[in-house]
């Protein structure tokens, strides 16, 4: 931890991308679970995620990034799934 003599003036962050070091995933009380067989690859989850915790590779949705996912549940709410079966469900952490 920095002392008062070491903190940068005005709390300005001069290191680009340093928010990567701050793993907000530890805030999570509920964990989104991806069910690939119900997924239609619409990428709504990717668009709606207020973080960047839905990873996309080659235009396809892949696993969640649990280092940063705060468990807000927006992706699960927006997910249309397949034939009424959600491709994202929220599960309580630690259960």
């Amino acid at each position: 931890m920095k002392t008062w003599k070491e903190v940068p003036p005005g709390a300005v962050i001069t290191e680009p991308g340093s928010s990567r070091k701050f793993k907000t995933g530890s805030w999570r009380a509920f964990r989104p679970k991806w069910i690939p067989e119900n997924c239609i690859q619409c990428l709504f989850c990717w668009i709606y995620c207020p973080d960047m915790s839905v990873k996309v590779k080659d235009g396809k949705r892949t696993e969640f990034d649990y280092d940063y996912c705060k468990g807000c549940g927006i992706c699960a709410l927006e997910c249309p799934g397949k034939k009424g079966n959600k491709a994202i469900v929220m599960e309580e952490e630690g259960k």
Partner: protein
Amino acid sequence: MHRKVAANGNEAIANAMRIANPDVCGAYPITPATEIMQRFTTFVSNGKVKTEMVLAESEHSAMSACIGAAAAGGRVATATSSQGMALMWEMLFIASGLRLPIVMGMANRALSAPINIHGDHSDGMGARDCGWIHLYCENAQEAFDNMLMAFKLAEHMDVRLPVMVGMDGFITSHAIQTMEWIDDETAANFIGEYKSTNPLLDIKNPVSYGPLILADLYMEYRKAQEHVMSGVPKVVLDIAKEFEQISGRKYGLFEEYRLDDAEVAIVVMSSAAGTTKEIIDQFREKGIKVGLLKPRLFRPFPYAEVGEALKHLKAVAVLDRADCFGGSHGPLYVDIASALYNYAQRPVLINKIFGLGGRDYMPDHAEYVINELLQITKDGKVKSVKEYIGVRE
């Protein structure tokens, strides 16, 4: 070439801003500071400055625009008064916490309610603890000089803090006085080129402003800010010395008028100091040893220096042009009392509240206060520590 002119305080501040040529100016009009921006926007329209004017929808937005522009890396200035200052209040702390060297002219005016457009210090005093540097001016000349010095002070690499420059609304902002300009080139060279620190617009070196700082680090940032503030008086004096070279005018942290050998003294800020000096001269002619201390740098308050300057006196009256409702005394009194408390031998201190809402401060008020101080030195009796003067009983 130094030109003697007839000008008012608003004109003085507007011209100092013209010389500083800010990159951005976010503003919203309010009496009695309106004329500052009115004159300044004329300079913008006439191409005398290259400033980008942001005419905001409120003072809160005006200060927000100033903050954004300063973080972006520009020299930034604005002006306000009274309710405008009150509406900016939230943003004032953000400007100082982010260490943005914004310069603001302030025509000090009373606060509502009841609504009143005239001069007193309620606005500045309300913002005294917001982390800005405060300079107060007696007249238009000081308003011009302090505003020029304010840019250099705010932008100094050891400071990087916002500065507000206060003068009495109407009394100084609108009354035409004799003053002296400093030619543009000399004054502009004195202020110097603007150097930005961590500009947001430097896209090769991306930075973030305004992160969340919680209990694990907030105190360290506050202590760091307090530390920077404590170094301000030295820079104020260095800049004043440099300013004397171009103007011939001397400035300190405060002005001492016939104080050295005085036995009693008045402490008063801004325009009322002029009237007080006049009366002090009259007492001096009768051989009565009276003096004056006029604070200039009000924040950070130079406690040690003020204490040293006042400790030898027998009795001191602190005149406040604002009151603290529910607090025991006026804001200036509280600071003077703090400056003197640790001396074993210290003057008797009394507090007068005067001039609220533009009520005239008359020569006989100064006379009344000095006579009371003299009576205290004779019989040691204090009839009341705090009193409103110039009020109908």
